[in-house]
């Protein structure tokens, strides 16, 4: 199983130990660091679930079973929030590497989720429109 990130809707960036993911379609954004940032790097590069678990278990010196369980939970969160979709057909990748950073002990990856944008997107109702779809100005009286 691999995962797709819809580039039309989701923009993301990793810098050092932090990652930020913006879902412009839902108005939510997510931030994460440590294991969450590493997990995102591997997902967004197209690595399969099995290879993600192997890579993370090796990088953190953790039990594969533990990593597999934690990754599964986090991936479900990302899918549930419409950030990624699971796909059997996504192209496989090679040579995906994690950045050379000092890593602490394994902890379950988790993203902070923010939905504040919705407060800013409350819109006025669209004004009356004509059959062309555009709301032309009312004719002004000629004085």
């Amino acid at each position: 199983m691999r995962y797709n990130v819809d580039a039309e809707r989701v923009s993301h960036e990793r810098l050092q130990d932090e990652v930020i993911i913006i879902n412009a379609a839902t108005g939510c954004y997510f931030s994460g660091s440590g294991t969450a940032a590493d997990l995102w790097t591997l997902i967004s590069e197209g690595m399969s679930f099995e290879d993600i678990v192997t890579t993370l278990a090796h990088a953190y010196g953790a039990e594969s079973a533990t990593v597999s369980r934690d990754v599964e939970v986090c991936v479900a969160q990302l899918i549930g929030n419409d950030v990624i979709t699971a796909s059997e057909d996504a192209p496989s990748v090679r040579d995906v590497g994690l950045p050379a950073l000092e890593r602490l002990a394994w902890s379950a990856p988790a993203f902070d989720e923010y939905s504040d944008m919705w407060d800013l997107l409350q819109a006025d109702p669209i004004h009356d429109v004509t059959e062309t779809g555009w709301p032309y100005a009312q004719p002004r009286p000629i004085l």
Partner: protein
Amino acid sequence: MSPAVSFARQVADRAETALPQASSRRFSIGDVGFEVVASSTGQRHLSRAFWPFESGAAEPSLSHSILAWDGTDASIGPPPRPWGESGHEPLGIVAAYSDSRVRCALDIHTSTLILHDREQHRSFTWYPAIADLPTWAKASPFRIPLSWLLNEHGMQMVHGAAVSLNGRAVLLAGPGGSGKSTTALACAFAGMGYLGDDYCAVEPEKRTVHMVYRTAKALRATVRMLPVLEDKIVNPDKVAEEKGIMFFDADDVALVHSADLGAILLPRISSDGRSRLQSASRRDAMHALLPSTVGGLMGGTDFTAKALLRLVQNVPAFTMELGTDLEGVKDAVSSVLERAS
């Protein structure tokens, strides 16, 4: 030809037909020069928010043209909208008529069509009636196409205010009501440089901030604390239901085009009336900047996440609790710049 490019061409044809005797006025944000092409009415209402070049100043080369017209003559409106009732939801971007070259959007607050063609270096903005736009819209015109243009040049428009001292600026970020405008206006009228109070442009790699609009918005509470603002407000009859809007000239405050960015400041109203300053985390800075920036810019672009992350990693952030004594605000902001240097 993609649906986006085809629709863009139709819009361009209509705009050119609608603007046979349009005038052009040139402005810049940082090194990015652009022109507003509009009728005399359009220029009067839409160009006032930008700070004209000072006589003798070198003009940046022209990067982009923004053509603006409106629906006061229905015969030259945009082509019929091809995407139905909800194609622009939820943020305003019309995904079916946007691609790597063209971005198409509907501003649902002002029912404005926005079309940006990065290959042709032109944007088109159609309003129902330019003269009838609310004052706040005239104070921040072309926010969406300008944000896309700036992204193409390594800049990010951000929801925030900025003031400077001796060429170094602080970017004030936070949700509405946190004290951004009050802090910026108190500092500007205490002699600091003014780069904007609502939207500014940042270049994270260069650590610089640029003026976008020479305007300001103030709640009645801010005007009560800074009575000097009262004479500057252009919509005094509307301040009961909306913010007071100001268009500043160099006689009002020290307008500054660009400054080095020394710090991100997260103002908050103090619960006990006393002012305090403390370091803020990158996460706090991101959370103060991102929601209103991305929400106000229709989700931003691919560049937005990168720009904001680099900004908070490159620039130190501080939380400033604001007391009730505005006379001390300039000193507090100055101390931030000293602490960040």
